[in-house]
């Protein structure tokens, strides 16, 4: 196994996530695409971690931190989506024009 095969796969997942964030209108689907990008970052971290083989296991520890922060982000994000849906009865990102003049 070479380290680059994991990095290229992670780059692929990351760019698919970027496509999803740009093209989806539904907010929940945008959050799903962000999860895809975070997973790509985690693959990168763990691949580098086992490539470097450091004593502090930094790659895996920081992958764990990313997973935790992503869980927090999903909780807050879905709460905000729920609130917006309650106020505007829509979760499409292009219909949220309250801050547009």
């Amino acid at each position, binding site marked *: *196994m070479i380290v680059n095969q994991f*990095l290229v796969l992670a780059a692929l997942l990351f*760019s*698919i996530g970027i496509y999803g964030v*740009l093209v989806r209108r539904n907010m929940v689907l945008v959050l799903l695409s962000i999860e895809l990008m975070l997973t790509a970052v985690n693959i990168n971290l763990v691949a580098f971690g086992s490539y470097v083989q450091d004593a502090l296991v930094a790659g895996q520890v920081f992958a764990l931190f990313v997973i935790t922060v992503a869980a927090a982000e999903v909780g807050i994000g879905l709460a905000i989506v729920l609130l917006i849906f309650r106020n505007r009865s829509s979760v499409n990102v292009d219909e949220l024009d309250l801050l547009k003049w």
Partner: protein
Amino acid sequence: MEFGDWISDARNIVFLVIALIMFVSAVRVVSSPNLVHAALMLVLTLAGAAALFVMLGAEFVAWTLVLVYIGAVIVLFLFGIMITRAPTGRDPVRLDHERRWPAALVALATFITIAAATTAAFEDAAIPEGVVRTEDIGDVLFSRYVIPFEAVSFVLLAALIGGIVLARKDPEK
């Protein structure tokens, strides 16, 4: 490295199968006309990522991914989809923007940039063997990384309280 040499390693065949499954399911996540299917396809992608972590010797991270992501986050997403009563029928026009090609172009350019950079930087650098035991992660997490660990715990607590405050109905109304 020649492709023939690379594929002669059995682990690389396993990697190729997992990568193919992850690629197809990730594409379905961003292109599926059905919201619930998109969320369920993310499960497949994350399971593939967990399998890759096992291949890399990161067993604890793999199981954390399965428990936290597939177990909790996806269920949260499904709740979000159900509660917002999003269109569950097959209607791709209402789920996607009209202009898909600029987004695809941006994604392709990102992929080419990152892949070219990593290929130029690492070429054929091999990953050494070795499994990180959960004990090692626990040791290092509660000694060297104890302050970041506590900070992340605090972030989780703040997110928990914030989620409750945001999603709760205002009692005065």
